[in-house]
């Protein structure tokens, strides 16, 4: 086994025992990245930073100061601002932008000793479910069927592909409507979106502020627990960050879920759901039952309104959040013609700088907030959001500990397959995941099996707010029972 194939926990043990060094781990990953250009996962490479951080980590380990992530090489989604390193949210409009500040999440990781390998591809401004909206071109899923190139999902597609292909030990992702959990499922890895407010948004390029939350994408549930602990913190620079202590999530992985109540929401049994997904869901429930949990059918009656509400609220916030990309202070500015004024500068800059999906969402968002439509769309969507949250509050109050659902309606689909489809078809990818963002809950995607074509499928567990440890423990049990060990065959 090469060093880059290690999990965080295995690498941590090896580093502490002196079996390997952070520099060796880092070099193994850098080598793997070099050979994986075909995946188009890493879009900005930072080997100098990586090796310098690795040497620093080795010194810390030697000195007996080895925090959780010390010496662990990771990839960072391009949405995170990293000081002095290109951070452009996979958008042309942020061409050449190198922030003079470090996001709280990445700073926390560096403080914990992690090593930055580079920046990872994603959908432009995290808007997409297939990583095809990136200005860098699409990411290719390391999993393959025949000769078809598949999507790793999105928006954290680069992160999912990089972790699945062992280019790094783990990666950061962000999740606004499923952008961690869906690609994790498509790539056969673990991804958790924590409770809204658990992880600071400071320094993460905003998509939809009331929904965005960063989280780890890892090779195991244990790794997710370790890395989430390093990423999370109360951050006074983010007013929506919760002033709560960060518990030891790894310590919560007892493997004991006896007596826990697992909810199976009947509204998630969608019409036309593939039998494979249905079977996987059933299998997951059986596994948890075998581990001593009680399986309870529950109702989350407003589920069907979640997707439309999400596709009002998220674009509304995005239309405002993306107004700052105007060509005045940083990033791309269009070349202006004779007599062009400020209006032309805005129009040309934004037309050139934003891709079609981002433009579509800005227009939707502008429309739903405009005079005369605000109540019909935005206000109604907020009310729906409150009802969806209440659905969850009700089942948790009734004693449900975690909710089990499919993570995605299908396995990974082919790149370009949705190119001519109605955009709403693409939005349906988020059908199982958006409710969690709307309600601000933690949700984790765990790989549980392969479909008939040999592609990974994941299940989602949804937990109580602020109970990520308990949620990860359920995920850990599911992971152990499923025994998912498949890896994509290397073709790249």
């Amino acid at each position, binding site marked *: 086994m090469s060093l880059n194939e290690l999990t965080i926990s295995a690498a941590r043990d090896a580093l502490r025992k002196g079996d390997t060094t952070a520099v060796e781990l880092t070099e193994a990953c850098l080598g793997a990245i070099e050979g994986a250009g075909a995946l188009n996962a890493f879009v900005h490479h930072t080997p100098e930073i990586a090796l310098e951080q690795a040497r620093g980590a080795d010194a810390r380990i030697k000195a007996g100061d080895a925090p959780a992530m010390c010496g662990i090489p990771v990839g960072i989604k391009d949405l995170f601002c990293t000081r002095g390193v290109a951070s452009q949210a996979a958008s042309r409009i942020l061409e050449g932008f190198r922030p003079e500040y470090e996001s709280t999440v990445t700073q926390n990781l560096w403080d914990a000793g992690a090593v930055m390998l580079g920046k990872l591809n994603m959908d432009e401004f995290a808007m997409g479910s297939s990583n095809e909206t990136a200005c860098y071109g699409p990411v290719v899923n390391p999993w393959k069927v025949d000769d078809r190139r598949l999507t790793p999902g999105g928006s954290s597609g680069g992160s999912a592909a990089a972790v699945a292909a062992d280019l790094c030990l783990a990666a950061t992702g962000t999740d606004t409507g499923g952008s961690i959990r869906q690609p994790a499922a498509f790539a056969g890895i673990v991804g958790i979106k924590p409770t809204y407010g658990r992880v600071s*948004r400071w320094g993460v390029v905003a998509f939809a502020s009331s929904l965005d939350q960063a989280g780890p994408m890892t090779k195991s549930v244990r790794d997710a627990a370790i890395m989430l602990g390093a990423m999370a913190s109360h951050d006074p620079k*983010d007013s929506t960050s919760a002033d709560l202590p960060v518990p030891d999530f790894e310590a919560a992985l007892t493997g004991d879920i006896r007596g826990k109540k697992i909810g199976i929401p009947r509204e998630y049994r969608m019409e036309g759901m593939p039998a494979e997904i249905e079977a996987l869901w059933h299998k997951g429930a059986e596994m948890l039952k075998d581990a001593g949990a009680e399986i309870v059918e529950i109702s989350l009656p407003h589920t069907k309104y979640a997707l439309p509400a999400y596709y009002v609220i998220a674009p509304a916030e995005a239309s405002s959040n993306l107004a*700052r990309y105007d060509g005045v202070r940083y990033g791309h500015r269009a070349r202006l013609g004779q007599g062009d004024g400020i209006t032309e500068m805005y129009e040309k800059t934004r037309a050139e700088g934003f891709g079609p999906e981002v433009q579509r969402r800005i227009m939707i968002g502008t429309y739903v907030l405009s005079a005369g439509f*605000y109540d019909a769309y935005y206000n109604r969507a907020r009310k729906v959001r409150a009802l969806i949250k209440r659905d969850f509050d009700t089942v948790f109050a009734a004693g449900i500990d975690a909710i089990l659902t499919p993570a995605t309606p299908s396995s990974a689909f082919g790149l370009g397959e949705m190119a001519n489809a109605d955009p709403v078809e693409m939005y349906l990818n988020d059908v199982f995941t958006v409710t969690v963002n709307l309600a601000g809950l933690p949700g984790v995607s765990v790989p549980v099996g392969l479909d008939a074509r040999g592609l990974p499928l994941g299940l989602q567990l949804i937990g109580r707010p602020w109970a990520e440890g308990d949620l990860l423990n359920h995920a850990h049990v599911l992971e152990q029972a499923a025994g998912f060990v498949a890896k994509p065959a290397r073709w790249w």
Partner: protein
Amino acid sequence: MLDHLAYRTPEPKVIAGAKADWELVIGLEVHAQVASNAKLFSGASTTFGSEPNANVAFVDAAMPGMLPVINEFCVAQAVRTGLGLKAQINLTSAFDRKNYFYPDLPQGYQISQLYHPIVGEGEIIVDMGPGIARRVRIERIHLEQDAGKSIHDMDPNMSFVDLNRTGVALMEIVSRPDIRGPEEAAAYVGKLRQILRYLGTCDGNMQNGNLRCDVNVSICRPGAYEKFIETGDFSYLGIRCEIKNMNSMRFIQQAIDYEARRQIAIVEDGGAVVQETRLYDPDRGETRSMRSKEEAHDYRYFPCPDLLPLEIEQAWVDDIAATMPELPDAKKARFVADFGLTEYDAGVLTAEAENAAFFEAVAAGRDGKQAANWVINELFGRLNKQGLAIADSPVSAAQLGGVLDLIGAGEISGKIAKDLFEILWTEGGDPAQIVEARGMKQVTDTGAIETAVDAIIAANPAQVEKARANPKLAGWFTGQVLKATGGKANPAVVNEMVARKLGLGE
């Protein structure tokens, strides 16, 4: 203690049109820069006059991923202002985004409080002369960010942007349409400015743009306003126009007057006033349309998702209330009651808190009316002449008090006191010592006065004759004696002695 003097309501201004009489209805939105060292959502400095773009935090420049964090001091200042205007303090308020594109608005939105302002209804009593005042209701005060400054005249092809002001905290103070004339509007701004300065929540510097206002003006026929007040039905009032961004009391009055006459002319001509935003051009003395309804912005307000609702506690508000200074109305009422001043003098003395404090220091333990006369006529007169603020006064309250003590003790006459004041102004020093050292003491020694009186009488027999025939002429002798004693003789003593020596009876 009264918190304000009794007053009656002024008559509304009436403008005679070509066909009928018209009244004005005016409401103001005042933008007051919160006195604070740091901006509303960032730690950047608010110092005026810094190098362009020197006071800009990442969040002010709307760098990607940057987030606003509320400045608690600015919130306290808004609460203090609300308490000063006897307003409702909302323990829960919230911030909204007002979206529009402009280069000096880096975020592409202004963070403001549309739906849930921090301060609700209050009032301001606007003095229009002794015993006359207009009570103007305050609808709300909300906190919001200021924008930056676009500079178009530095280069023929380029515009520049200075973000120093971007994100500075403003309070928007919105009045009800209770103001009934141009003078009242200016007086309203003046009174509000005075209260803000007393509170220390805004320096009121209009020249720097730290206090500016939008003026809403409409016209109506006499009687219509009263119906509006009765019913709350705005249809009794005319269509209003909003004159933007005024920062001079004089221009406010001129603009309102022009705008009212413009509207009257339109309506009397059978036309209809169009609701719009206008700008006042002081050079041409007219208002002109800024943008029409078709070009009107749709600001797409929605709750700012980066900020949680702003929750404050009553105990915190109570703490602020406990540190409130005495405000102008109460101070004025107290000066009238305690020092026996006229409302006019009390008004002059309380215009600025520093002036009032100076007066009180002078008046403490002395005659209030006399202290007021000296402070207003001698001190303020002299300060005004030289363009000095009270803080720069060369004569301190203790020195002026010393002068009054010397007058009171009969040591110096009023005339000598003015000379003494002049010496204190130019040279400084202790009043009593100066009087002693320079022999300025009033002569009350009857022996010395008698010698002088005798000498004058002896030297002017003809005048003595005349005065005995016509006692009114005795004043001539008094004048001569005062002249001979260099003004130091006590005039009352001289008068009495002259009369006695000339045998003019008691």
